[in-house]
């Protein structure tokens, strides 16, 4: 197996053994139960609301999971051991983002599949969810690099999740999306809107391009954050 495959395996194993997978399944089951009650409702006219909720959820767990996993690694000293190994930093980032994004993606897709009766585009929805989860996960690395323990991280984490969900609030508050063109999750939000055949303010090409550009920017910032955390272990 390659280093990347081992990193993916290690992250999945860590999430399983720390109990996160079971907690996640329990919470998901609860959400599904509630959502099933709403499945009889007519969503016509509420697609914007659904799109906003989906963005919030897609942004939430990647930031949280990345933060918790990195803090765990740092407290155990495993991050220090990784820092003095030939582990490729990009592989480390990519593996973790892949794992947390897949968790987020699977949960949201299953929820939509179970609840939403009207027609939607699974491709656009998957792209939007993946984009939002990936960008959020990468920003999770940046955020957690400023904190050394879980308690200090929790409140800023909530703030970061709220900031990443801003295009969703804009929908709910009727703020024109064009004002949020610059926002990291505006591209994914537009893709999610398109999935529900909404009149998104961004064209498909622009939405994809914005998502990719922000993913690249977030990846560079996450890479720098890894360097910052390694320097913090050193004491500088």
């Amino acid at each position, binding site marked *: 197996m390659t280093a990347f*495959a081992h990193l993916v395996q290690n992250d999945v194993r860590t999430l399983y053994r720390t109990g996160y997978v079971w907690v996640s399944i329990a919470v998901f089951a609860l959400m599904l139960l509630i959502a099933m009650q709403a499945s009889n409702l007519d969503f016509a006219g509420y697609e914007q609301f659904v799109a906003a909720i989906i963005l919030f959820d897609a942004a939430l767990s990647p930031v949280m999971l990345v933060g918790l996993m990195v803090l765990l690694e740092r407290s*155990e*000293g495993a991050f220090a051991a990784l820092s003095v190994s030939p582990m490729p930093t990009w592989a480390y980032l990519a593996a973790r983002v892949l794992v947390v994004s897949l968790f987020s993606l699977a949960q949201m897709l299953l929820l939509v599949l179970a609840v939403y009766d009207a027609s939607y585009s699974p491709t656009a929805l998957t792209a939007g969810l993946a984009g939002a989860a990936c960008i959020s996960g990468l920003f999770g690395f940046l955020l957690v690099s400023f904190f050394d323990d879980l308690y200090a991280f929790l409140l800023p984490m909530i703030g970061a999740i709220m900031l990443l969900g801003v295009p969703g609030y804009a929908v709910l508050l009727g703020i024109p999306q064009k004002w949020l063109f610059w926002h990291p999750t505006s591209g994914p939000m537009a893709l999610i809107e398109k999935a529900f055949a909404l009149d998104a303010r961004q064209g498909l090409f622009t939405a994809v391009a914005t998502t990719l550009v922000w993913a690249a920017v977030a990846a560079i910032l996450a890479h720098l954050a890894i360097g910052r955390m*390694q320097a913090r272990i050193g004491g500088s």
Partner: protein
Amino acid sequence: MIKANGLTFAYGGNAPAVNSLTFTVGEGEIFGFLGPSGAGKSTAQKILFRMLRGYGGDLHVMGRELQNWGPEYFERVGVCFELPANYRKLTALENLRFFSSFFTAPTIAPEEVLEWVGLRADANKRVEQFSKGMQTRLNLARSLINKPSLLFLDEPTSGLDPGNARKVRDLILRQREQGATVFLTTHDMHVADELCDRVGFLVNGRLARVGAPSALRLEHSNRIVEVRTGIGGVVDAERFPLDGLSGNQRFQHLLAEDRIQSIHSLEPSLEDVFMQVTGEKLA
């Protein structure tokens, strides 16, 4: 293997934590940095395993300026931290398999390295069930898995019981026999005395002295022997200058009386030498 010339590092705007360190470490040598807490030992090591950047002076490792090494540096280097540095939810075996996956060159079988450090029977136990000593040994196992040419050890016997400390010391000596260079930091004089070919005394970020432990002890010896004699269970001790001992009549008399129980040359311990040279205690 390592050539440092005027190596200096300061955290932020503080006074230098290591100041103008100049030393060399030869290939296949065990070199130890000795000093009390806060002397700069860990800082020097962190520079050497690239956790601290922005140092001053020249630092060549394995024939190349340290800053010019890329990630391939860690293909040839092993680092053993003093504090536990493993995934606690993984077993010892899983930890080693995970870390060995990053190396491009063939690595040693994890089971074999675990055998070396006495953890073979605990290979499938999760690290969270390990004592601190077991985790220290697992750290050492991880640092050896890539057959490193250069091994950095930070307090390698810290927290180990005498039996395992012995095992670890033997393992370190075996690494040298196999051609590895070992750079260790410790404040344990026994470890330094037994393992190191040369030691450097580090105090307040400065290198006060470098030399072989035996040479340093001899250099600071008062050249005195203590002779203990016993009659009827009462032990008496007398001291004689080492120089001219063969002509010392009292000493010859004691020899002739056949009452001598022990003769010791009163060489100072490495700790005594450290205190004489630096004026500081090690603890």
